């Protein structure tokens, strides 16, 4: 399906249509449930943060929304259309983009080829040049490393490239899974600056994080997952204290019992083969 021109898609300021709606979504790996009946809405141009400890089902939620795993129950609506269980590449062409934990870039390809791949599916031929220029002005470091193989970039630069490819592909919804993972604090600042810039450009964000404070400062709406279920949901100003308490409480609990049965080990989430 062809997508409309970007300008039509981008919401006007102040508009709060629901762009992405998740209704009662469940994911299971065989008999092991990972996500159980999760519902939330993502309005256009806003950011929802999903918080939760390791194994809470955050990454599985991200994978189900972006089509990498098929949900066992529930539905995903994008612009009011049911896109549940649609193949990942089709969702990507419609504008739902995932930056997974391991960055989601082609490590063996050059920076330029990474961006070309993103432009190919999202952007009409005559606007690719302009889109590329826009991205490179936002991420100047990539411009100077066009020919470098992406896998040899530093961790922070790789994350920038991942966000740049989302921007280049003119996605409408970005699902980003732990963008701060494995980065030095300074670089985390840079990543969040880039995310803010993306949101300012009209992108809607579903941000999955473990850094509670940081994410709560960023999001318009917050969601705490625990054992695959939504435990708390609301604007950060309202749920902040509860979430922090829940987090600390869980940490103490986990410390005391040494191992919390969290449904899934962290490793299975988003390792790409």
């Amino acid at each position, binding site marked *: 399906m062809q997508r409309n021109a970007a300008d039509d898609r981008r919401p006007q300021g102040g508009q709060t249509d629901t762009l992405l709606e998740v209704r009662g979504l469940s994911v299971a790996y065989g008999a092991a449930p990972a996500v159980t009946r999760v519902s939330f809405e993502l309005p256009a141009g806003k950011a929802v943060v999903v918080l939760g400890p390791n194994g809470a089902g955050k990454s599985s939620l991200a994978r189900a929304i972006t089509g990498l795993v098929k949900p066992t129950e529930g539905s995903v609506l994008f612009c009011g259309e049911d896109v549940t269980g649609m193949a990942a*590449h089709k969702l990507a062409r419609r504008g739902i*983009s995932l930056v997974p934990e391991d960055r989601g870039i082609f490590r063996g390809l050059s920076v330029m*080829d990474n961006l*070309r791949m993103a432009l190919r599916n999202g952007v009409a031929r005559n606007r690719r040049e302009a889109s590329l220029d826009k991205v490179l002005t936002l991420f100047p470091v990539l411009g100077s490393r066009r020919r470098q193989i992406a896998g040899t970039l530093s961790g922070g630069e790789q994350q920038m490239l991942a966000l740049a490819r989302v921007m280049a592909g003119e996605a409408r919804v970005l699902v980003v899974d732990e963008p701060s993972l494995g980065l030095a604090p300074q670089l985390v600042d840079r990543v969040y600056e880039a995310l803010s810039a993306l949101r300012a450009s009209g992108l809607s964000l579903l941000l999955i994080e473990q850094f509670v404070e940081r994410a709560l400062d960023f999001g318009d709406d917050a969601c705490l997952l625990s054992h695959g279920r939504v435990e708390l949901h609301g604007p950060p100003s309202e749920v902040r204290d509860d979430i922090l308490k829940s987090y600390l409480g869980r940490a103490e609990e986990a410390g005391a019992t040494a191992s919390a049965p969290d449904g899934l080990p962290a490793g299975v989430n988003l390792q790409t*083969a």
Partner: protein
Amino acid sequence: MSAYIISGLVLGSIYAIAATGLVLTYKSSRVFNFGHGAIAFLIARMYYQFAQVWHWNSWLSAILTIFVFAPAFGVFLWGFLFRHLTNSSQIVRLVATIGLFVAIPAIAELIFGYDPTLNTLGLAGANPPVYHVFGVTLNLDQVFVLGFAGVVALALGAMMRFTTFGLLIRAVVDSPTVSRLVGTDPQRVSMGAWALGATLAGLAGVLLTPLVTLDVDSFNVLLVASFAAVVLARMENLPLAFVGGLVVGVIQQIVTKFVPADSVALKGIVPSMPFILLVIFLFFWGSARETVGSRAAAMGVNPDAEKEDITTTTVRRQRSFLRSLTPIAVWGVILAVAVPLYMNSFWLGLFSEGLATATIFLSFTVISGQAGVISLGQSALAGVGAIAVGQFATAFGWPMLPSVILAGGCAAVLGVLVAVISVRLGDLYVALTTLGMGLLLENMVYTIGRFDNFSIGVSVTPPKLGPIDFSGKNTFYFLLLGVFCVLALVVWNLKRSSTGLELAAMRSDPVRATTLGIRPWRLKIFAFGLAAFIAGVGGCMLAMYQFRALPENFATTIGLVWFAVVATLGLRSIAAALVAGLTFAVFPQIISDHLSQTFQTLPTALFGLGAIAVARHPDGVVAMHVQQYKWVKRKLSGLRHRAPSVPDGVTEAPAA
């Protein structure tokens, strides 16, 4: 010298075209296509049909076959087979392409007729003009080969670097998941790669037609030679695969210069040069010791983790199958012992052949069923056993029993040697090395006069043991049955032993098995040795059945058909090995009794298609066996008790 180099370049060009096609499909879908040569043969056979049987314009025929039919066939194979193998394990993919290797030429001959005396012409027609370049004589066909190779190299290079399709292939090779995330369907790209790969195979095939006779074996051997280039390129590097093909061709021709003409060495060394190079390249990579699998494992990514885990499910299933096997074995032995009572001597002879073949097939049960590795050299190892027993028992006049055991030992030593070279490199390289070993033996050892004995082989007669003379039809049958049962017990015991458990653990997850203190490569080497011993003894038995140790009966291509048969019926089960042996001996006989000459390749085609079907439904056929057995058991118990039995919840549908 320049003459050798240029004729080497001609041959090398064909290797190069074939090798780039193989690398391209391997890169984009992780399937190493053993059927590449078979596709080349199919297209060449088709070209021959159009251009020479139906007298169409040769260029029109070439364009139709290479650029229309070949890509369409590639897309067909992708849609019908390879698309479904994305999540399969390496062994299943190999079974599938070996099925193609076996089935495609047989089907081609079913369609176009079997005609071994094909006088084939190339694009240049009946009397190609001859040119003299740098003092070398080249005909127009050879010039075309060089020209097309150049075009392929430039076009592919430009495509990979500058076109969108090239970018897509590189992206999908780099990460199928990320490709999906940016909106590219990796399957589509893979389809394109298969179309292109089949086109390159077809091009190689049509270019090859004027240079060799148009028969399956010479095609397969020549295209297997391009495997050396593929190994040099480590399956991945397109330019290196191309250059490697040229190098292999040139080296092969230069060797001719230094080997005295009319010598045995010339007959052996020149055709086996690619396989010698293959082994050298493997040694080279062996010292580098880093395979794709281990690299992925080191990165914490288990390449097989996300795949549909057929190994574990089959392990689970196999338990119940084993338990249910015991009554089958009892019935089987009773039936088998009674065979001489109800069969005439002709069918008894066929059953004897089947038993001898089944003994060899037990080696597949060990190496592929238990160790989870594909060896394509089991027929060659059986051949070594046969040759050795011919020497020991007949030439040296030793008693039969120690001769057979020693012959098995010879095969075992060779098997261990091959395992040591290849096991650490990964399963795909094991398959390639064993295939290379088989062809090497075929060219270098089988042709030695002492073994070949003017193409009649050294005679091997069944032994006398005290008062019993095993050369009688019945007694010989019982000897074969006894040998099979003893070896089957060894295999059965291996499955039950703690080594069997370790093997099962290793099959289901090599990385985790290693953390439990299991050393996979040691286990595999052990399995290789045992399987080679069994194959060697089986080879002795087959030689005794044929009254002579004729090496050419153990050709590697025959071994691939054997493998397809066993894979169809079940690589894990002893009963399946027995049934496979009997099928292989009896089925072609039934076909030739009841159908005309046209259908003589039908059994081979069906064996190949069977392996393909298994690859598509790896769980299905085993499940089907269990189901059928349970059905028989229900019927039998129903007969005994004259009471309806309750169906016991087998839910799987039988495989196609």
